[in-house]
């Protein structure tokens, strides 16, 4: 009897926390939108035009501030169920498909597949090798290498499932991913602008270099519409490789590390495949074949922006730095070196592929 009452109570508390957390996220998205509109026409210090400060920046900033307030007042854990970065991001990405012709996806995907194969392989093995040199445990470097080479948080979770990593290793890598991705979301578009990169090349660079999909979309949004589209296609192509990497990792850890005879099923490739990518392709096909009228009154574009804005608010809210003290400096040093390697390699590869081999024309 007692055991039945406790979960029921916890469940109702979770539902209340979810609703309040979600309402908070929506309110903060309104605040971010208001800040964006407020500074849009203003010229800021150092000659920075207000319109350069797009909503992803404000949303993440507002999320970070409220994150700190919630933790200081000890209510963070109660409202946390309402913070759904991945869900909002995926809704936004499916809606983004309604503005991209399928021909563009196919054209960009050709370059994106080559880029993804080069980037994922090179970055994964560099990170794995460097992690070994710094004496990181196999499970931690498997999760880290997958996160930094594919797509941050969701890849880290998929890899952790394959190698049976510890829970604190996942939360640690998740925090590292967000801490590096947030500044990169702002710095990468600035650097791309300083280097005079075209929008397709810049988008491909963000897609290959910034670790988490939310920050990739954020960097693309800050740089321009075409950059946002190419960045999303490149990142989703990379995301599609999660299943393959999760399967290979499970195979390696089962056979080589643990010495088991039974092998994991290839079904994990489909199990880990990001299904929302199918939704993105479906909306693009509907748009391409004229089954969706050209965005009626810009409603779909506005919904997409709202979904992304909610995701960026959650990204700021979900940052947690508590695990850093426990794990020491070595994983941080490895992660930062690999991020620099990733950034430089992605710049060269995206320039060669999207600037020269498969120049995307939108």
């Amino acid at each position, binding site marked *: 009897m007692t055991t039945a009452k406790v979960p029921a109570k916890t469940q109702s508390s979770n539902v209340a926390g979810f609703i309040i957390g979600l309402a908070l996220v929506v309110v903060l998205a309104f605040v971010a939108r208001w800040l964006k509109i407020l500074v849009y026409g203003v010229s800021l210090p150092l000659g920075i035009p207000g319109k350069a400060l797009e*909503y992803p920046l404000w949303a993440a900033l507002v999320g970070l501030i409220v994150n700190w307030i919630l933790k200081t007042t000890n209510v963070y854990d109660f409202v946390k169920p309402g913070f759904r970065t991945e869900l909002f991001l995926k809704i936004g990405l*499916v809606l983004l498909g*309604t503005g991209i012709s399928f021909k563009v996806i196919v054209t960009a995907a050709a370059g994106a597949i080559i880029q993804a194969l080069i980037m994922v392989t090179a970055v994964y093995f560099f990170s794995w090798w460097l992690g070994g040199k710094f004496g990181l445990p196999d499970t931690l470097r498997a999760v880290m290498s997958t996160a930094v080479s594919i797509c941050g948080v969701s890849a880290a979770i998929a890899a952790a499932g394959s190698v049976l990593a510890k829970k604190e290793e996942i939360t640690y890598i998740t925090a590292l991913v967000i801490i590096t991705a947030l500044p990169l979301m702002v710095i990468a578009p600035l650097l791309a602008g300083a280097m005079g990169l075209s929008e397709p090349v810049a988008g491909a660079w963000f897609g290959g270099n910034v670790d988490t999909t939310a920050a990739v979309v954020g960097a693309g949004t800050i740089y321009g519409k075409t950059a946002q589209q190419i960045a999303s296609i490149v990142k989703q192509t990379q995301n599609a490789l999660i299943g393959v990497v999760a399967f290979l990792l499970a195979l390696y850890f089962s056979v080589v590390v643990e010495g088991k005879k039974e092998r994991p099923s290839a079904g994990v490739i489909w199990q880990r495949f990001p299904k929302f990518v199918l*939704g993105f392709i479906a909306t693009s096909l509907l748009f391409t074949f004229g089954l969706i009228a050209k965005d*009626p009154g810009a409603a779909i574009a506005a919904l997409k922006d709202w*979904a992304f804005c909610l995701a960026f608010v959650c990204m700021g809210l979900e940052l947690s730095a508590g695990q850093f003290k426990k794990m020491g400096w070595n994983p941080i040093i490895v992660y930062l070196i690999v991020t620099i390697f990733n950034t430089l390699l992605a710049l060269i590869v995206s320039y060669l592929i999207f600037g020269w081999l498969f120049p995307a024309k939108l």
Partner: protein
Amino acid sequence: MNVKINEDWLAVIIAFGLLVLAVAGVITPKWMIF
């Protein structure tokens, strides 16, 4: 085939629901444009 409703599918369902509302003209974007 047994299709489990995970976050990916939920995102697709919500996005398509929003899409239908937008195409039907139920959602008017004047107050919500970024």
